[in-house]
């Protein structure tokens, strides 16, 4: 005997969301919005906290909705590379521990972490955020190496944007002590009382998009949206509107016109992020 049970609507919605996620999303996208109430071109609430790790030379915590990434920068001494004796090093590393999401296991870094590390290394290299010559103390003998460790604490999509922002904020927070080479002993003398901020030349900001059903582009995808998307696109732009990186790892094809729309959204996002970061830095008390 068939009996119709009068289920509360919210129970029905969660069942539908689990069983047919793509169809559930399509119903929202048809009305030009998403299940969390955002519009297609809207970012999640971005918060940034600078200088929280006292043992690091520079640190920043960035939250994009639920996605949380913390970046810590440690500066150490190293000999400059043989082929570039007047340059230092910037070594980024992105870690996606099992803490942030059930899809990651403990052990050597998985593909996603390696791809993210390579992406951050490319952004640093392409945007020339720091002139490597500034990190040189004594050509051929001593240079700074900045180890930038980015750890994801909560993975809810759009990890690349969060990492780029965290890296930028942490580097702006880094203070390096003055180092002089003693002529007689040829040893480095570190003056911890006199510290200088790094010279950050450009401010690269990443904007990520997800492609749905080969046609629709949505900004700042959550974890669920990334999983359902047929492709992703990340644009890294600096303040002059120059592109540092156009990262589109496969997925559905895009026309030149769609790319143009993405560019304009990336420009507005850059302004938002720059404003937020300037506010935070201004609010910090000078040491």
């Amino acid at each position, binding site marked *: 005997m068939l009996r119709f049970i009068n289920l509360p609507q919210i129970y029905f919605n969660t069942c539908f969301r689990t069983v047919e996620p793509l169809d559930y999303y399509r119903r929202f996208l048809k009305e030009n919005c998403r299940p969390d109430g955002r519009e297609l071109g809207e970012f999640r609430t971005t918060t940034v906290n600078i200088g929280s790790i006292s043992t690091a030379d520079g640190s920043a915590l960035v939250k994009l909705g639920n996605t949380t990434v913390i970046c810590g920068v440690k500066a150490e001494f190293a000999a400059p590379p043989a082929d570039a004796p007047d340059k230092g090093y910037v070594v980024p590393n992105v870690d996606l521990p099992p803490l942030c999401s059930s899809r990651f296991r403990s052990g050597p870094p998985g*593909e996603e972490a390696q*791809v993210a590390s390579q*992406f951050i290394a490319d952004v640093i290299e392409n945007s020339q955020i720091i002139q490597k010559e500034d990190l040189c103390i004594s050509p051929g003998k001593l240079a700074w190496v900045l180890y930038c460790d980015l750890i994801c604490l909560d993975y809810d999509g759009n990890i690349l944007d969060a990492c780029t922002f965290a890296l930028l904020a942490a580097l702006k927070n880094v203070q390096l002590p003055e180092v002089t080479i003693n002529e007689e002993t040829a040893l480095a003398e570190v003056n911890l009382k006199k510290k200088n901020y790094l010279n950050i030349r450009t401010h690269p900001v990443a904007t990520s998009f997800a492609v749905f059903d080969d046609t629709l582009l949505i900004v700042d995808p959550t974890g669920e949206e990334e999983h359902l998307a047929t492709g992703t696109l990340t644009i890294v732009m600096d303040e002059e509107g120059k*592109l540092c990186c156009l990262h589109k*790892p496969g997925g*559905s094809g895009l026309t*030149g016109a769609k*790319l143009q729309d993405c560019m304009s959204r990336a420009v507005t996002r850059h302004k938002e992020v720059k404003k937020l970061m300037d506010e935070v830095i201004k609010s910090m008390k000078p040491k």
Partner: protein
Amino acid sequence: MDGAMHTDAKSRAETGTESGPRGPGCSLRHFACEQNLLSRPDGSASFIQGDTSVLVGVYGPAEVKVSKEIFNKATLEVILRPKIGLPGVAEKSREQLIRNTCEAVVLGALHPRTSITVVLQVISDAGSLLACCLNAACMALVDAGVPMRALFCGVTCALDSDGTLVLDPTAKQEKEARAVLTFALDSVERKLLMSTTKGLYSDAELQQCLAAAQAASQHVFRFYRESLQRRYSKS
């Protein structure tokens, strides 16, 4: 067909010399492709662009580990081995790019719960390596008979300091360039499937490079068609 089929392409955007330095304007280096040269993989191809050469073998559709199987489509795996040294983080990043490009065109839904493995070996690197890898992978997938909704090709553009565009740059040109952009385009509508870039460039320059890459892809697709026609017309 049995046996290796060797096809040469003297394909150029405008007329120019085949060997020696390239003339001004946009032109691709001499390229050549050889299919079915390895006996064990289901499909194999070697693609040569100028002095850059990549050898690819495709195994599939084949058995897949239960942990990796997807219930409604084929699992695509890409392994890229550099010429010297062990594969590192850069190779992993390139593998992801190639894999996602192949996933966009391969009709995985026709072979659920199977695996298609694409193994690329860099024989020599003289610039435009990623584009050469993509072209070789496409030819190998065709040789293996993997169903695809479109063919794809890779094109590299280099922008030097005064904004001049060079297609299919050599290693020297890549090093001296201000920006190097690699695109993967599909054969049906020349849409952008994959893009990865190095260096700083403006929005207008991006559109210019994309348009040039789309024009150059015509030649690559024509070369694919000719080489396959030549291969299958021999009885």
